[in-house]
């Protein structure tokens, strides 16, 4: 019995029984989804993988299956919670039973899923990318760009077939204000693994003619949740952050922002919202213009009217002014005349008075002249009576020494020659003795 070889079926049955008895429970396991596909009957077949730290080499791999009844329930739960389609590349925490089938071999059958693990992983991955962009100093570059005053020439990155692009164009071109927009499609794949490269290529095409555009819009049709991991990559984020035109994203998901949303100039939820954003931006510009227009068309006539009123008030004020001036002049003249009259009268009075004084003055003068004449006569008489000639005639003589009158004999010395003047003639003599 010991040597009897087992059939493969027997061996596999043995493995199955061993596994069933050794691993009878349900186990929570962390793994990455790979090769996820759903067959016609709704069963989901996939691979669970575990990679090394570099993400390049596989460390473990297991086939997985989610039966249709479980898958329908779990998928909607997962997608509702994460906002993310159940696709390859996601890290998941699933509850599995370990099975072995004699024909199909080892597999894990999923019975439950914990979406918070996936969410956490997505957040961690986004954080990591954002940290790297921040370190490189490019995280906020696109946000720092100023949105042009006019955002009319719009380079749209989308897939041509997506309903989102049609909605966006409709909204723009039929805006209720009648603004003109020039949207142009730059096609890109907006789903799956090629998203990153496809969008980068579209950005390159826009960049080649960047002077032709005011703004870039990246939109994706809404509807069913799909794989957004393509929008959470470093290369795409770095390209967008450094793009020379402002980027507006409307990727059409309700949950967390992707890295692309976080680095873009403006993030809105849907393509329609992106169109609204651009319309409102131009609307603000138009409102500014309307405000100016209003001021100009209201203020200018008002100023003219105001000027007219000023002129009117001048006209009505002029006669009054003139009259007042005339009155003032009259008054001044009267005043002047009065002053002149008074001054003239007082002068006349003064002159009259002076005229009355004149005879008195004349007689006073005559009296004075007479008095003075009389005094002169008396003086003449006194002078005459005191003249030496008169004295000489009376017998007095005048003795002179060296031309000077001698009145003191003691001043003469013997020998002095003196001159004696008489009433008639003179003679010289010598002092002999004293």
């Amino acid at each position, binding site marked *: 019995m010991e040597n009897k070889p087992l059939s493969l079926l027997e061996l596999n049955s043995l493995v199955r029984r061993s596994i069933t008895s050794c691993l009878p429970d349900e186990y929570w396991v962390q793994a990455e989804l790979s090769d996820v596909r759903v067959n016609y009957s709704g069963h989901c077949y996939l691979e669970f993988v575990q990679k090394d730290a570099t993400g390049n080499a596989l460390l473990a791999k297991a086939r997985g299956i989610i039966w249709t009844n479980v898958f329908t329930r779990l998928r909607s739960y997962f997608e509702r919670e994460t906002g993310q389609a159940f696709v390859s590349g996601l890290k998941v925490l699933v509850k599995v039973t370990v099975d072995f089938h004699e024909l199909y071999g080892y597999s894990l059958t999923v019975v439950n899923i914990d979406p918070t693990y996936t969410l956490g992983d997505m957040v961690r991955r986004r954080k990591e990318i954002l940290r790297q962009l921040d370190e490189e100093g490019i995280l906020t570059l696109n946000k720092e760009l100023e949105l042009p*005053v006019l955002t009319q*020439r719009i380079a749209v990155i989308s897939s041509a077939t997506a309903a989102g692009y049609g909605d966006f164009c409709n909204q723009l071109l039929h805006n209720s204000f009648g603004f*003109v927009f020039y949207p142009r499609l730059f096609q890109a794949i907006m789903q799956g693994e090629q998203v990153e490269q496809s969008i980068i290529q579209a950005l390159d095409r826009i960049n080649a003619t960047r*002077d032709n555009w005011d703004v870039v819009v990246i939109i994706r049709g809404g509807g069913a949740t799909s794989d957004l991991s393509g929008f959470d990559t470093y290369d795409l984020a770095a390209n967008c952050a450094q793009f020379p035109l402002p980027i507006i994203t409307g990727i059409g998901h309700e949950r967390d922002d992707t890295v692309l949303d976080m680095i873009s100039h403006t993030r809105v939820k849907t393509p329609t919202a992106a169109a609204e954003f651009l319309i409102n931006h131009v609307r603000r510009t138009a409102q500014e*213009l309307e405000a*100016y227009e209003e*001021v*100009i068309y209201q203020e200018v006539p008002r*100023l003219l009217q105001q000027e007219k009123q000023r002129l009117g008030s001048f006209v009505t004020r002029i006669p009054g002014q003139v009259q007042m001036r005339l009155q003032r002049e009259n008054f001044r003249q009267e005043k002047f005349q009065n002053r002149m009259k008074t001054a003239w009268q007082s002068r006349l009075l003064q002159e009259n008075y002076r005229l009355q004084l004149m005879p008195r003055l004349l007689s006073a003068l005559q009296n004075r002249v007479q008095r003075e004449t009389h005094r002169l006569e008396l003086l003449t008489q006194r002078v005459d009576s005191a003249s030496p000639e008169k004295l000489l005639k009376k017998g007095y003589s005048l003795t002179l020494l060296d031309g000077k009158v001698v009145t003191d004999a003691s001043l003469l010395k013997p020998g002095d020659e003196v001159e004696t003047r008489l009433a008639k003639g003179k003679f010289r003599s010598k002092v002999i003795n004293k």
Partner: protein
Amino acid sequence: MAAKKETYSEAMKRLEEIVSRIESNELDIDQLGEYLQEAQKLIKFCKNKLYKADAEIKKILEEDNEAQA
């Protein structure tokens, strides 16, 4: 194209200047007519930008389209 965008901004800037002068009563009544005329031209220019499709822009974008196709 870039120059045209500038012109819109410049037109708005000039309008703002005129408006602020009007509002602050700085304008000489003799200049009012000139300013009004200038403002009208600027407003028309800006409105055309907003509301009228520019054949030149369309043409450039179409050329770009063809180059891509």
